């Protein structure tokens, strides 16, 4: 760990988060949006783990485990919604999801 400061990890996480924003705004594919959200969650987790090391208590790591768990739940629900909507609209482009009824 010598020579590595907290800022190394925070800057990496910030750039990873910006990449996630790029993915979410660039994609018109519902699964692509999900990939962007996963990138952002990973960026937040890098921050949590870095602060956990520098603070020296375990709370950050526990919180990161909860974030990973919620990301798994979110991916499962989002993909089942995508599959369900795909049956209705025959498309996974977000531009085609223009109605909420039935």
């Amino acid at each position, binding site marked *: 760990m010598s020579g*590595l400061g907290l800022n190394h990890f925070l800057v990496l996480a*910030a750039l990873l988060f*910006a990449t996630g924003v*790029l*993915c979410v705004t660039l994609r018109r594919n519902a699964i692509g949006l999900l990939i962007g959200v996963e990138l952002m969650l*990973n960026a937040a987790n890098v921050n949590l783990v870095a602060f956990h090391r520098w603070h020296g208590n375990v709370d950050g790591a526990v919180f990161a485990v909860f974030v990973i768990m919620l990301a798994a739940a979110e991916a499962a629900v989002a993909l089942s919604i995508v599959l369900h909507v795909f049956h209705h609209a025959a498309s996974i482009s977000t531009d085609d999801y223009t109605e909420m009824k039935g």
Partner: protein
Amino acid sequence: MGAQIAFWIFAIVTLGSALAAACARKIVHSAFALMATFFGVAGIYAILGSDFLAVTQVLVYVGGILILICFGVLLTDRVPDEYKVAQPRRWLPAAVAAGLSAVALLGALQATKWPVAAAPAAAESTVEEIGRSFMTSYLIPFEFASILLLVVLVGAARMARGGTR
């Protein structure tokens, strides 16, 4: 010195593959680039000394979420040809949004004085501490998490099966 070299390697792998995942023309390529990103982040956790999180990252993200995403890509591939080629994309607003968020985050990083120690705590295995926390101070959130996972499992299976009401 070794940790520093490993950090730069993993940082470049993570950011490069994340960029590839964001910009790849085909969604399958995006999913495979995402795998490299998850491994890179797991390496960053390992450098930070969080052995449990590095393993969990590989198990849950690469073994679970990425497989789910691949299934989603494959199951929604029966689409007309016009959707198979990449659709017109909004480069300018996307680049502006990503650039603004990067500038805002990096600016906040520079402006904030973090109340942390100058050097990280000594690297030791965190498995025991995390397990103890889950069974003591984080017991209620832990139980709620298990209920949430059960509800998600049932709900996702129910919804993905299609429109039987």
